[in-house]
């Protein structure tokens, strides 16, 4: 009897630390751009993720388990992102959050597919959710969801018949340009200039001359943030003051900070913005600024929502079942009544794309002002 008790105690002593660790916490990997070109957006995402994690943990965690978040820096490099995701998967996370750069997601998503681990990304390239990945989701608008709203705005509000297009020549930029061109062709809008620019490009004078000389009804810019700032500076230098429309990055807080008054007058579609007339988003923006001293951009909001989506999906399942996670989320609608942390009612389609209302924003005196609220495509 005594031997049995000692053996049981010994077994418990060996097993308990592991069991306690497993029982008390749930691991989430944050695979994100913490350095390199995407550092600005990755930092916003990560700060917001940490904010959500602290709130959820303070309120008792997910199904009683505290979230244990670990950051993995992709260095904004697709190859590094894949290596870092492998490292993250070796630690057996419940869910992987990120990355944001589409070029990184495209090369690493095969690993989560193979491992059967849910991945919630901030990437926007249309192709990501069209690969048949069973466990991928995003909290941002994909290009397939965002662009139709923008093209509709160009046609119905700007009444543009011709558009000059400039884009960053990378995975994300080309994906957006291809989607936009296709939709514009269907809408009867002619693309009269189709100009690429490079990542880290300094001089935009040739590109600006090309889009300006096209004398289009509007310029559509789809460049990364630093490049958007340099493009805006050159555009204003060359005296352009016609309609300038972009998607998300052109009117982001970082671009406004970098280009100052040159960003004024730029308009763009954003899936998420803290200046939207939605109390939950405004409150999130206030909390974010209080915590970091910075204004959030859409990436911060995406990261925050991603953590709450994990919480809601898990609570709906009642368990930490990775296989059931995707099944639960595909086609699901999460309202702010179900989970206030999602900030806006959100619906996932069968591919993992998200649909919800979004905003058309104009930069006025260095600040984003919401011009109109665009309904969800499904409405």
């Amino acid at each position, binding site marked *: 009897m005594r031997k049995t008790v000692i053996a049981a105690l010994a077994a418990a002593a060996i097993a308990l630390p592991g069991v306690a660790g497993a029982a008390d916490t749930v691991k989430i990997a944050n695979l994100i751009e913490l350095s390199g070109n995407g*550092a600005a957006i990755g930092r916003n995402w990560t700060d917001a993720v940490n904010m959500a994690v602290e709130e959820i943990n303070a309120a008792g965690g997910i199904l009683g388990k505290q979230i244990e978040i670990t950051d993995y820096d992709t260095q904004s490099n697709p190859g590094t992102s894949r290596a870092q995701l492998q490292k993250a998967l070796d630690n057996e996370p419940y869910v992987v959050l990120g990355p944001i750069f589409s070029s990184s997601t495209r090369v690493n998503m095969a690993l989560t597919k193979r491992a059967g681990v849910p991945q919630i990304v901030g990437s926007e390239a249309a192709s990501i959710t069209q690969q048949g990945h069973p466990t991928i989701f995003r909290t941002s608008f994909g290009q397939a969801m965002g662009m139709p709203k923008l093209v509709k705005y160009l046609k119905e509000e700007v009444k543009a018949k011709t558009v000059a297009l400039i884009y960053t020549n990378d995975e994300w930029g080309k994906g957006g340009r291809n989607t936009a061109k296709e939709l514009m062709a269907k809408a009867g809008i002619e693309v009269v200039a189709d100009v690429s620019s490079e990542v880290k490009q300094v001089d935009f004078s040739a590109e600006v001359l090309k889009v300006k000389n096209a004398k289009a009804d509007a310029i559509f810019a789809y460049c990364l943030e630093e490049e958007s700032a340099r493009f805006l500076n050159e555009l204003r230098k060359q005296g352009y003051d016609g309609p300038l429309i972009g998607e998300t990055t052109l009117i982001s807080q970082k671009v406004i900070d970098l280009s100052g008054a040159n960003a004024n007058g730029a308009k763009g579609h954003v899936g998420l913005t803290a200046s939207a007339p939605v109390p939950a988003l405004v409150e999130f923006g206030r909390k974010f600024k209080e915590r970091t001293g910075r204004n959030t951009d859409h990436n911060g909001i995406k990261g925050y929502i991603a953590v709450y989506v994990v919480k809601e999906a898990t609570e709906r399942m009642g368990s930490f079942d990775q296989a059931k996670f995707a099944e639960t989320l595909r086609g699901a609608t999460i309202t702010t009544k179900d989970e206030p942390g999602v900030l806006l009612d959100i619906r996932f389609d069968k591919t993992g794309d998200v649909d919800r209302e979004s905003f058309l924003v104009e930069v006025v005196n260095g600040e984003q002002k919401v011009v109109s609220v665009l309904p969800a495509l499904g409405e």
Partner: protein
Amino acid sequence: MAEALQLLISGIATGTIYALPAIGFVLLWQTTGTINFAQGEFVMLPSIIMLAFIIFGDMPLWVSFLLTLAISAMLLGSVFKVVVVQPMIRHGVLPLIIATIALSILMRETAKEFFWNEAQAFPMPVPYIVIRMGEVTVTTHHLFSFGVACALVILLQWFLSRTRTGRSMQAVAQNPDTAAILGINVQRMISLAFLINAGLVTVAAVLVTPIYLAKWDNGIAIGLTAFIAAIIGGFNQVRGAILGGVLVGVLENFSAFYISTEYRAAFPLILLIAVILFRPYGLLGRPEERTV
């Protein structure tokens, strides 16, 4: 015509940006026989330090510039010479190149870790005014950068060829042993060359960063383009650096506008290959022989 003129003016302005660090490449080669592959980071670090003084010390640009100049002279001049160049140069140019590549990585990671990992706006050294001449525009910043770069080239050219110290520095680069026999203080000349380079990169930082934005990885692009510009212009002529820089800037613009924006970065490399094939000492360089 207006288009071509605009492209030319913008190209010259951007080329001036490329030329400034290229001058540093040439200066170090001409005076010490060293190639510094951390030259881009030598421009990046002063820009980050200057911005830190401006933001955290609430200082005006010119005060932070002077403070940074002193720090650069110490870190990028004296410390660089004593810690990196002196121990490595005796093993030949190749180990030194590898050491400067390692240094460039160290500097990038340090800037990222201890300052900012994302781009920051940087104040203009002169009031930013856009001057319009019909269809063509130019900014006061462009004019100022071009003026400063030309003045620096003239000053350095005069210093190296017309002053006793400058000629001594060139003599040290060509043959340190003979220079020492002739009574030249070799170590002093080498130190002076590194101090001048430190000053040069700090001036370059204040001129290029408003356009490049202050960021830890800026040195990669700055260093590479400046190196290409220095080879095109002539690695042994200071005035060659400015010609090389301007040619690269103008060629990028013209090729992007008239041929293809996708291949804008390729055309300067084509020019580089042509120069290496047909004029290996650069457009303004002069053939020289060195003991190997």
